């Protein structure tokens, strides 16, 4: 099954997405999921995500295909939002389904690590005290991505 990739401004329905991967099937023994949410660190007002339309979908599809090549997955979904997102709202959803737990859990962590460093999104934080600033890339994310 081809990975399901969505890049959208609207919120997503994680439960409905999870159901798509298991409904009517009896070969899925493991469903792993990761949701990344916007935190209100230091009174952050909102996060604005810019992306590169066209390249984003392409990059996410490649990352998901890499996961499906490395692990025996029955399905894989990546949904990433862009635009203005306020604290408490979800930003990203990764779902992986497999016969066995290790494949689902490892590939879910792999997908998050790779999309953090290989998908063209840029976060700008709207600060509590007014104004905004671009989030800087972190060396720890590079290190996490390179362990795979």
């Amino acid at each position, binding site marked *: 099954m081809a990975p399901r990739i969505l890049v959208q401004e609207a919120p997503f329905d994680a439960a409905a997405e999870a159901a798509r991967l298991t409904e009517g099937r009896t070969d899925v023994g493991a469903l792993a999921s990761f949701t990344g949410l916007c935190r209100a660190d230091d009174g952050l007002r909102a996060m604005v*995500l810019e*992306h590169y339309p*066209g*390249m984003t979908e392409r990059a996410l599809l490649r990352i998901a295909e890499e996961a499906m090549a490395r692990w025996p997955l029955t399905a894989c979904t990546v949904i990433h939002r862009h635009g203005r997102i306020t604290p408490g709202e979800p930003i990203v959803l990764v779902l992986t389904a497999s016969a066995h737990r290790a494949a689902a859990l490892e590939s879910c962590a792999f997908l998050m690590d790779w999309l953090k460093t290989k*998908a*063209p*999104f840029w976060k700008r934080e709207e600060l509590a005290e007014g104004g905004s600033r671009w989030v*800087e890339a972190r060396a720890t994310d590079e290190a996490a991505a390179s362990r795979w």
Partner: protein
Amino acid sequence: MKILYFAWVRERTGVAEEEIALPDGVRDIAALVDHLAARSPGHAAAFENRRTIRAAVNQDFATPDTTVAPGDEVAFFPPVTGG
């Protein structure tokens, strides 16, 4: 050729997208950056510290020695921060 800028690179150049004619002798990303940096003070500021800039050619990540040709879509941006 189409040049795209994202995030603070876009803010500094002051444009999100521009069409340019690829000059003779410009054959890779490094040379293209030299050329673009001379377009305006904003462009110069955007490309001031080249180690902080990433590029893509035709929507694939590129390096300074990636070749560019007329008709390519080339994008410049900071290291990504999604997820």
